[in-house]
């Protein structure tokens, strides 16, 4: 009896501790860079996300360090979700652990408005060699706030339609460069076989998973999260039409287990020829065309399918920013400029390989002959889509925020995530579309009211 009680108390205590730790994680103070000053040794702590381009940067940091004696750059590479939690907690609480952070297009304008980031407008514009105008216009717009630039795009992406030309040719299906969603759904139904899905689309719940493509589908069907006055419009007929279309397409010709599938799962399915088409991030094209890809050279690429809008691609960038709490502001800005410069792109091409050059950041990258050759299959369409999307009004109606597949307000992560779970339940036939959207509307409305 005694042992039983003690275990219970211990269990409860441990749980309480876990919760308090979760609550306190923002207070995780750690001393960052060594004392700065002229001629002194400086360590720059850089938090970044674990994808290929960032790892290339870590590999090349020695070039920067040898050109700038006394400066050491210390990389802390994390998973996207961990990075978001760690960096948000650090920057929001002013702990000052990082001198440079990697943040997404979603956070940048919000953090800039909060005064958490150093305004980079002047340092970038005053350096003619840096050529800030060369950074792709829509990306710069998406990460600016009030005309000020708080971060620099390291690489950017949009979304495109990718299809296996061999499979489509065999079925006698052709797609134009600007297909409509109806054409794509018909083509998917046409090429689908018992062993192969016609199309692979994200269904895994999460605001950055399911809702990245689904928001763009909703927008091109004429719907959006909020109207111009921040009233939630999730229960509109356009939303219902778009979500029903998405589910019907998945049911009729999508992958067998949609709720488990997101970017990586669809990439595997395309490579294994278990799916014929895929509408997702443009960066996927470079992976499908990589030397180890079984479908290299077999793929065709088109603009993201549309219904009522001209374009339907999303816009995402991973950006380098300098938190205002840093002790080494000057050196941090210098490193950020180096890592996003034209020279850096040349360096990556020469040292690592031309197909590894960070895409979607600089116009001039697409004029490098070696890059044009290495990325011939997907570079032109990536540049074309990225320069033509409009982050200020991606849908049919004007919206009060800048951004395409997300709403740049703090509550969106949470609202998007819970709505994605509701829609995943609809995709799995556990609820009706009306119930899911009505509940989602109830979640989105208070978040919108907070902006009014």
């Amino acid at each position, binding site marked *: 009896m005694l042992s*039983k009680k003690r*275990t*219970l108390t211990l*269990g*409860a*205590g*441990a*749980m*309480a*501790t*876990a*919760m*308090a*730790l*979760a*609550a*306190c*994680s*923002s207070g995780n103070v750690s001393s960052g860079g060594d004392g700065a000053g002229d001629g002194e040794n400086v360590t720059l702590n850089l938090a970044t996300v674990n994808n290929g381009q960032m790892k290339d940067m870590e590999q090349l940091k020695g070039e920067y360090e040898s050109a700038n004696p006394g400066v050491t750059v210390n990389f802390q590479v994390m998973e996207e*979700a961990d990075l978001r*939690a760690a960096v*948000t*907690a650090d920057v*929001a*609480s002013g702990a000052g652990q990082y001198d440079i952070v990697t943040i997404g297009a979603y956070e940048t304008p*919000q953090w800039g408005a*909060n005064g*958490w980031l150093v305004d980079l407008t002047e340092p970038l514009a005053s350096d003619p060699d840096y050529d800030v105008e060369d950074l792709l216009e829509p990306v710069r717009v998406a990460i600016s706030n009030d005309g000020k630039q708080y971060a620099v795009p390291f690489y950017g992406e949009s979304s495109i339609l990718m299809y296996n030309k061999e499979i489509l040719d065999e079925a006698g299906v052709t797609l134009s460069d600007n297909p409509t969603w109806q054409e794509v759904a018909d083509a998917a139904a046409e090429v689908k076989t018992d062993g192969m899905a016609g199309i692979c689309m994200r*269904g*895994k*719940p*999460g605001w950055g998973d399911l809702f990245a493509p689904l928001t763009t589908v909703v927008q091109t069907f004429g719907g959006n999260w909020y109207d111009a006055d921040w009233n939630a419009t999730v229960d509109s007929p356009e939303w219902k039409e778009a979500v029903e279309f998405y589910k019907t397409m998945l049911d009729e010709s999508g*992958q*067998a*287990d*949609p*709720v*488990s599938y997101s970017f990586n*799962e669809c990439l*595997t*399915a395309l490579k*294994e020829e*278990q799916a014929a088409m895929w509408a997702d991030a443009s960066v996927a094209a470079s992976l499908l065309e990589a030397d180890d890809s079984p479908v290299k050279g077999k793929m065709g690429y088109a603009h993201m399918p549309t219904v009522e809008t001209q374009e339907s691609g999303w816009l995402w960038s991973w950006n380098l920013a300098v938190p205002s709490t840093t002790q080494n502001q000057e050196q941090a800005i210098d490193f950020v400029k180096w890592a996003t410069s034209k020279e850096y792109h040349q360096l990556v091409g020469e040292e690592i390989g031309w197909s590894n050059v960070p895409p979607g950041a600089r116009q001039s990258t697409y004029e490098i002959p070696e890059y044009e050759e290495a990325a011939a299959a997907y570079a032109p369409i990536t540049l074309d889509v990225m320069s033509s999307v409009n982050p200020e009004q991606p849908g049919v109606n004007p919206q009060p925020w800048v951004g395409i597949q997300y709403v740049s307000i*703090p509550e969106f*992560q*949470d609202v998007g*995530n819970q709505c994605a*779970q509701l829609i*995943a*339940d609809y*995709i*799995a036939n*556990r609820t009706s579309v009306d119930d899911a959207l009505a509940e989602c509307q109830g979640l989105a409305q208070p978040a919108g009211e907070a902006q009014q």
Partner: protein
Amino acid sequence: MSMTDVDTVEAKTATEPRRVNKSELRTARGLAAPAIILLILLTQIPFLVTIIVSTINYNLLRPNDRGFTGLDNYISALSSGDLGPSIVATVVITASSVVLSVVFGMVFALLLDRAFPGRAVARTLMITPFLVMPAAAALIWKYSMFDTNIGILNWISRSLGLPIVSWGTNHPLATVIIVLTWQFTPFMMLILLAGLQGQDKGVLEAAQVDGAGPWRTFTWITLPHMRMYVEIGVLLGSVIIIQVFDPIAILTRGTGGTKTLAYLLYERAFIGLDIGQAAAYGVVTVVLTLIVATIALRTLFKVFMAGGSR
């Protein structure tokens, strides 16, 4: 502890029992103090901080909008309707995984209790699932077992001409329970195997001599002997599985009735980034866990006690 105290008091002549008692008590308290202080530092102070934070409007992304809000966080936690389904999910997942792993653990323990060549190797292999990190185990199951294109389970059903099963989409609850059962069966097996090996061989022989078959020996002799070990297994298993997180985050993301209290707390704190509200959820969860654990576990053990004499 109390027994020795009484003994000591009786052994002394009745001069100053109180003083002796007090000084001994002081020593005892002094010895226990470091552990108690540590316990308070590690559990109670963070809990107090949680309670304080739970009354503050504290969203990480809204630094200019902070302040005391009283019980608003609790009201929104209780009125959101997330808690009820989450409690059901926690109970269903914990109970089914514990029961299934006890049943399978018992079967494997009985098999491994026999002498056969290669028993040591078999035992090591059987324990392996428990040694795999939970996140790694969930990832292995997601891709190598459940996946519709490259998973073994669907490869088997395809080979047998059966329809493909969309585990994550159509059976999220079963997916989580299967992974947890796979992971905790070895844990139960170890505890139950220890119990089986502690069984008096003489009693078993006597039963054999008296003409009891294997089934009667198992139900009348082995099972009553194993009751205590099953209890320990159920208790420890429940305490560990109730806070499970990895398979849910990796396999289902909280859809289809798998959003347990642990996952709900994670969502509130790290996706909502609303620390005040997350703290309120945390406090409510602690209170609920205490109530449920006290009532449910006591009832459970009463059933066990009433089942037969020890």
